[in-house]
């Protein structure tokens, strides 16, 4: 059998505040991971075939020209039965994943909240803010089709949505992010250590840290540093702090803060500001305020990096833009498309990184699972593969 199987869900590392899964709940996720694998490796390639062999040729025949943009591609693809079926199935698997995960965490919501509270007893690693206002770009959408998104709590102290997120990403990603879903954080930490062996940050800020799955590897890679993760979602922070504590990681704090108004932090107080898969979940005005805030809190000469999906450039085919845009509309990541139209180098200028110092590299998730689960050709599953674009740079050393 040359077909590559995803790892079983039990390879996901269970920490002290992890929700309990019964046998069938685990099996349900195994089914979904396998279904996703089949859909992305056997069915999804039909989209490109349909595009190449009939959608694009038919459009050219009818209009006497090629597609003008990814939206025209979308309108044409919507008529194609292979695309229709793939899209219907993909949406269905994402919705099932949410239902399945929520069914697990909601039935034990009270116990989870207690476990988290117990874990955090006497700890100062969590700082929630009673007056916090969740930014409108978050309340406006349920990212990844997760009802209630990151910020909703169903009762005081609730961590349901965070626990759901923690336990399900392994499925969506087919285990490619590793047993702690930290492949992105591991990759960036390794890349920084290897590329800048003399960089010894003492204070690191991870903006939009969520439950900290990508923050912890950075804290582990830089044990001398104080690492601060900020997020808008109280359930994520609460669960993230407890999870970090349960995993024995001490040099990380979880603070409820608005990336566009980080008045918790003084000017030039961080050596490194990181975001991981965060920018595409902000908003078109806020993103610029956020970059201004990054500039303010980042030390002169400090490092600023962003892990994102590839930007849409004129070099990227319109078909690929359309496929990458899919999640924007159909996986409830609505700012994804607009954000990937921006020029990252311009954003970095706003963060104080001169245009000629802008850098951009590709990184691949580092995961700790069996070697054979990582090897082999990864079928491009636009926006889902564990391969990202990292852009950023070093802030000017000051005047």
């Amino acid at each position, binding site marked *: 059998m040359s077909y590559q199987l995803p790892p079983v869900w039990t390879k996901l590392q269970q920490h002290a505040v992890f929700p309990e899964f019964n*046998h*069938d709940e685990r*099996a*349900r996720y*195994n*089914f*979904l991971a*396998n*279904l996703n694998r089949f859909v992305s490796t056997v069915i999804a390639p039909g989209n490109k075939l349909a595009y190449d062999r009939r959608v694009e040729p038919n459009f050219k025949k009818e209009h006497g020209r090629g597609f003008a943009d990814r939206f025209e591609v979308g309108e044409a693809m*919507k008529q194609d039965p292979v*695309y*229709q*079926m793939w*899209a*219907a*199935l993909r*949406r*269905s*698997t994402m*919705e*099932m994943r*949410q*239902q*399945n995960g*929520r*069914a697990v965490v*909601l*039935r034990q*919501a*009270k116990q989870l909240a207690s476990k988290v509270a117990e874990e955090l007893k006497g700890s100062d690693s969590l700082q*929630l*803010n*009673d*007056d*916090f*206002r*969740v930014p409108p770009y978050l*309340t*406006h*959408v*349920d990212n990844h*089709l*997760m*009802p*209630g*998104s990151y*910020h*909703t*709590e*169903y*009762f*005081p102290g609730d961590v*349901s949505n965070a626990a759901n997120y923690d336990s399900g990403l392994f499925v969506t990603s087919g285990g490619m992010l590793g047993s702690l879903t930290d492949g992105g954080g591991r990759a960036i930490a390794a890349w920084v250590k290897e590329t800048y062996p003399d960089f010894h940050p003492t204070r690191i800020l991870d903006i939009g840290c969520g439950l900290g799955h990508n923050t912890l590897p950075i804290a582990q890679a830089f044990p001398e540093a104080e690492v601060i993760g900020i997020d808008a979602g*109280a359930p994520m922070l609460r669960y993230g702090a407890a999870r970090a504590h349960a995993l024995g990681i001490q040099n990380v704090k979880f603070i*409820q803060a608005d990336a566009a108004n980080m008045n918790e932090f003084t000017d030039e107080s961080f050596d490194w500001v990181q975001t991981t898969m965060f920018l595409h979940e902000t908003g078109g005005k806020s993103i610029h305020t956020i970059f201004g805030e990054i500039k303010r809190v980042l030390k002169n000469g400090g490092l600023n990096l962003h892990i994102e999906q590839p930007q849409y450039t004129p070099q990227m085919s319109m078909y690929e833009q359309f496929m990458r845009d899919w999640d924007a*509309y*159909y996986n*409830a990541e*609505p700012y994804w498309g607009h954000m990937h139209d921006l020029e990252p180098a311009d954003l970095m200028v706003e963060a104080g990184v001169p245009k000629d110092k802008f850098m951009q590299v590709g990184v691949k998730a580092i995961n700790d699972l069996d070697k054979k689960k990582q090897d082999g050709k990864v079928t491009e599953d636009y926006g889902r593969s564990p391969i990202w674009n990292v852009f950023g740079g070093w802030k000017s050393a000051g005047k």
Partner: protein
Amino acid sequence: MKTELSGSHAGGSITETSAADAVNDIVMAGNKSKGGRPYFLEDPAVERVLNISMAIAADLAVLHERLDTIERLLEAKGHLKRAEIEAYVPDDAAAEERQAWHARFSARILRIVQQEVEAVANPENNVPMRTIADEINEM
């Protein structure tokens, strides 16, 4: 902090807000996310049925995995070898019972199609209920 305890995701029922101590996990697990749901197939009803079918498939796979677990545990304890299951051949009586199960299963899943055939066979039993209502009103 301002907790968002209201809204469509907070309640067990579809429109009500539930009390914090009454998380109706059965209903809330399936809450809808924000944003209009896109339908990709031309008839949304077909996509709804597809989604029902995929959910059934999911639980069929779950049941299979559960039975696999039981088999492996029984084997580890020496109660039953999986090879015995694979090698099992029913005797005539068992075979008959099993075939009858299959026949009844086919009858259950294709019930509606059978009834369509009966509707053609017996057109007199195919009168719209509105007409029957009016006829009975004269009886």
